[in-house]
């Protein structure tokens, strides 16, 4: 019984964290979003190729190959800083985005206090007069508990790794000035 309660508490805590993250992104609070990322984060979104049947499983570009995102905290910091620069025309006027997060699956991670969390996302972007982009995909996160009891003042978690499967071959938006 208490094991079930623990699992539920863990799920609630992780769900709340992921919803908070989505809120920060949709509210353009990028510096606060950056604070949710561990200093050693690898934030990675491989490209997705169309392959012959015999090459199934090799659609995603391999680690070390060209990716849509292949970032550490420094380079994510650049992207976040760019969001705040007055001449970042791609986000001026700002886009309206809505990150929907679902299908959350939680498994124990490799290190103590870490969990392997998979989630699906749908991100809607609307900007200027009538421009609409829709991105769907899956995230494989490693979430790291911060503090003994799940942290005290912060949200209790850091994102230590994120691998993003963006379900597009050709990226159908004119840019990816967005985080997933």
């Amino acid at each position: 019984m208490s094991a079930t309660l623990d699992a539920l508490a863990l799920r609630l805590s992780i769900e709340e964290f992921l919803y908070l993250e989505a809120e920060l992104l949709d509210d353009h609070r990028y510096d606060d979003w950056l604070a949710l990322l561990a200093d050693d984060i690898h934030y990675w979104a491989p490209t997705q190729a169309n392959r012959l049947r015999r090459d199934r499983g090799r659609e995603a570009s391999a680690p070390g190959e060209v990716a849509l995102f292949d970032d550490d905290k420094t380079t994510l910091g650049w992207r976040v800083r760019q969001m705040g620069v007055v001449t970042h025309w791609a986000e001026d006027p700002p886009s309206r985005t809505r990150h929907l997060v679902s299908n959350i699956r939680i498994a124990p991670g490799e290190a103590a206090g870490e969990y392997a969390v998979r989630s699906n996302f749908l991100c809607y972007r609307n900007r200027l007069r009538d421009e609409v982009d829709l991105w769907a995909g899956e995230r494989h996160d490693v979430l790291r508990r911060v503090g003994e009891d799940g942290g005290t003042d912060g949200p209790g978690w850091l994102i230590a790794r994120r691998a993003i499967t963006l379900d597009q071959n050709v990226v159908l938006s004119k840019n990816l000035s967005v985080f997933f």
Partner: protein
Amino acid sequence: MGADDTKLEDLVRWREGLVSGEIFVDPGIHRQETERVFPRAWNYLVHESQLRQPGDFVTTFIGADPVLVARQRDGSIAAMLNSCRHRGMAVCRADAGHSRAFTCPFHGWTYDEAGRLINVPNLENGYRGQLDTGAWGLTPVPRVEGYKGLVFATFSPDAPSLVDYLGEMAWYLDCLLDRREGGTEVTGGVHKIRMHGNWKLIAEQFAGDNYHAGITHASAASALAPVTADPAGATDPISADPVPTGRAMRFTTAMARPGRQFSHRQGHGVAGFFTSDKALTGGLRQMARDQAVVADYYEATDVEVTNRLGAERAKGPSGTAGLVFPTFIYLAGVFGASTIGVAHPVGPEHFELWRWCLVDAAAPPEVKAAMVRCHAVWPLGLADADDGENWSAVQAALQGPMARRQLFNYQMGMGLAGPDPVYPGTVSPEPIGEEPQRAFYRRWLEYMTSPDSWPEVVAD
């Protein structure tokens, strides 16, 4: 609107530096481009390193036409229309892979990597054995030629050889392709992104538009400029000059640095800044770990590269951006990544930008890895975001008849181009200007107004 020749000459008045917005939106003009420009020009297909073994293939486009490119048993590279001779279906729907046989999903006609028809279901009972399979192979792209790893193709029987077509452009391309023994290769993976905008907007930009970078990419440069506790210690990531106010870039000042533009009668162009040693490594080294690895590599190979190419070329204007007419683009060593790419037209309103990370084959693995990560962060990320916004906003504005009938100003640097004591070809004395763009549209007009064949270049 039809695209008759007299009208086109009113729309592209390159001598006066005037180009009408019509050419970016008109469907009739676009249809004519797909018939008169792309099949006749030398189009970029693939980097040789993508096709290492016989049977290795990629699929791509020549203008609007789908093309299958494959390494042959004799080591050559062949290109053919990716369209079945029975009803036209694409016979290969993978982006890349390895196969000795391509079976059409519709009725099963099967072709080998050379495009020969090697199997037809029901040949006996359906065709009574009467089908001449030798006559029904995939339609070849008849001419495929390479230059230092880059493979191009044309349908035109009259176009000059690729090397003659490139002309002095090859001298500039060597700065990208021939830095070290062993040449170059592309790393795995490719960025493909659908842009809202006419393909000529990006082609002319890579041919000559350094001008835009000062404003369009100011946000990227600001984001990259190091933030130091002591603002006086910060430097411009491009010029490595001190930046007095931390990350507040004076990017338009950076655009006033020395450089050159090269423009070629075939429509190619190069626009670039001279690169000082300080700029080559100084600013780069301060950015982040990967850029520092690249900076160390540039420094370690500097003598070798300079010996190969000569100092004027190694640190000359080709170290920025260029275009091989109509749609091959490159960025050389910008923020730690060299990028080659192609801009496929998708109707008049869109193009698809495909970009690979180009590395020296002889570079150590850790340097290649660092360059790949720079490629992810810079060309697609920090830079393209703002370029994409420009192109879509131009395209959206030109939907109105009054807006698209405007003649736009392509007059920067008119009359300044000529021979240069150091750099070959027609050269402008500044890194910004619009001579390559005028040359691009002059050449485009010649293709468009030539009804039957590849247009000869006429002397001035």
